[in-house]
């Protein structure tokens, strides 16, 4: 895909379908494409020392939403990534420390409104629109 797209990485195992639906709906409403990457080890993004070290791939496939989101952001042509695991969803950018995503939503008491807003915000980062407050 050559156009702008937010990338979304899923954790290995069962996909939290309802949460995924809300994230994707937020992006769709804003009109920004979302590409869901299959779970599994993320592709190595750079060899050590050669390019931007922030995007070095971790040794194994993370289950952590933040790490997933960071890898997605590194791969996305617009440098915005979402990560979704059973525990939560994160919105990330390559320049942030992998463990410190821009925004996070916990899945422990899943709030579809918050997840929808997170999707909107992923798109708004791309579209340059002020972010929605997570309800």
């Amino acid at each position, binding site marked *: 895909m050559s156009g702008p797209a937010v990338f979304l990485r899923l954790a290995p195992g069962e996909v939290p379908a309802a949460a995924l639906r809300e994230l994707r*709906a937020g992006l*769709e*409403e*804003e*009109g920004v494409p979302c590409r869901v990457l299959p779970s599994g080890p993320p592709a190595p993004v750079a060899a050590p020392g050669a390019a931007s070290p922030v995007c070095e791939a971790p040794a194994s496939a993370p289950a952590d939403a933040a790490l997933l989101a960071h890898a997605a952001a590194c791969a996305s042509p617009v440098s915005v990534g979402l990560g979704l695991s059973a525990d939560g969803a994160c919105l990330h*950018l390559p*320049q*942030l420390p992998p463990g410190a995503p*821009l*925004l996070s939503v916990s899945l422990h008491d899943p709030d579809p409104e918050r997840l929808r807003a997170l999707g*909107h915000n992923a798109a*708004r*980062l791309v579209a*340059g*629109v*002020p*972010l929605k407050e997570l309800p």
Partner: protein
Amino acid sequence: MSLIVGVDIGNSTTEACVAEVEGSGRAYLGSGLAATTGVKGTVPNVTGAARAIERALLRAGRALEEVDAILLNEATPVISGLAMETITETIITESTMIGHNPQTPGGEGLGVGVTVAFERLAARAPGDGPAIVVIAASVDFEEAAAALNAAAARGVEVAGAVVQRDDARLIANRLDRPVPIVDEVTHVERVPLGMAAAVEVAGPGRAVRTLSNSYGLATVFDLTPEETRVVAPVARALTGTRSAVVVRTPGGDVTDRRIPAGTLELHGERAKRTVDVNGGAEEIMAALRRVQPLADVVGEAGSHVGGMLAGVRETMADLTGDAIGDVRIRDVLAADTFVPREVRGGLAGEFALENAVALAAMVRTSRGPIEQVARALAQESGVEVVVGGVEAEMAVRGALTTPGTAAPVAVLDLGGGSTDAALARGEEQVATYHAAGAGDLVTKLIGSELGIDDRELAEHVKTCPLAKVESLFHVRLEDGTVQYFDAPLPAETFARVVALTEEGGMVPIPTRHGLDRIRRVRRDAKRRVFAVNALRALREVAEHGTVRGIDFVVLIGGSALDFEIPELVAEALADHGVVCGTGNVRAVEGPRNAVATGLVEAWGRERGPAAAGRSAAPAAEARS
């Protein structure tokens, strides 16, 4: 050789300068300033004065014990007041239109039909005519789309939809035949059902053409000419929006109600005029010009303006001990402005720019307990305090230490509450005028027009350059320059316009407007107050009221530090052939410290009232 400290107590700021005086020679050693404490001209000022003196002495590398005399300006109290009246109110009756212009409407085009609740759609028959489906938040977007498609498949025409959630595109994308959909309608439960309605959505970057045209509405709803006239304000209200909904309710309309805002009685020395605040600033100022010279102004009881005028009168009365009835309001400045207000009867939190009138007023008195201040300051400092120097004369003297200036020169002091002009005409006389309206009014106008209640934020918008946060790692300044950051900016600043504070901070401005619009509001407010008042004040002091006769104007005061105000004033005066620039007191202070410097300049020199300064010595030992 004496060590002298000049102190200028202003409305907002108290300034001091330190100099060695020997005969007619002066060696300036340093200056300092502090916020004025209490109302100018009253004993509480001493705290701020002491602080300013301390800072000046620190810069000068001298101690309080070495000071031979402190010179204080006459500091006649000036009380400024500020109030605003909103004079229009937009009301939508009977929920007849929706014009909040959401960010992501769905579909494109014009749909006309009858409003039908989503729950009743399944029961609708093909022969019932086209429907505008009203969908509450309880309905999921996939369910909504499926139901609309099913209805269409049944032969029921769906012409458009009104949706509570931000789901317009989610629904439109799933329709076999997309229709225009307006979403984010907060109070969707108030949309009248069973009535003729139209939904229009324009393409990206475009605006509706039919619902914003009176005759378009007439075509859509088959209106008579009389009905068309009634519906015209709806068309006006929907002008420029990308999406809109109009519901043909029996008596619904949009009105721009005039809010009776009370009257002002302008009492001149020879004439009197009553003017409606609703008439706007032009009318008020025109009436003011006709009754000049102004003797007093009274506002209508119960109005904001009336309350403000009564308030400044009361504060002054308390100060001077005069009876309230003896206090006179000596100048007012009216400025038209507007305030974003939520529309009454709106279904989706619509905002309208309501007209408003801002009024600045000023009260001054020639009497004031300045001797008390002098005594208290002498007590506090242990130094003899001499009161002297008509403020205007001192301002002129201080301003004349600016390179390139020579008498006759007019000095414009651009402060917080008032704009003051002083013109030295010949040796003895200094004509002065104090106009209501200055920095505080500018801040007020900026705040109201951007819908900012926080005064500190409005002050930031006034004084700081703006920037647009384009990514979490860079901003673009007003002039197009880009600034990069290593650490990410806070998420709440993303895509917002921010004010860049002197400390390197970034304050987001919570408004829908873009940077250029905010910049224009900022400059416009400064023009409306200071370009206007510069001319007003100079006319009052100029010979024959002709500004053209003035050669040089020097700008001093806190508002002359502003990065735009001096150029806007100079621009306004350029047409009158006046050389106008920001003062540079003693070639180093910029527009600050003029009066304090003037006091020191005048010390010991025979010249009008200045030389005859009244002295207050400390109660303790006489100083040698």
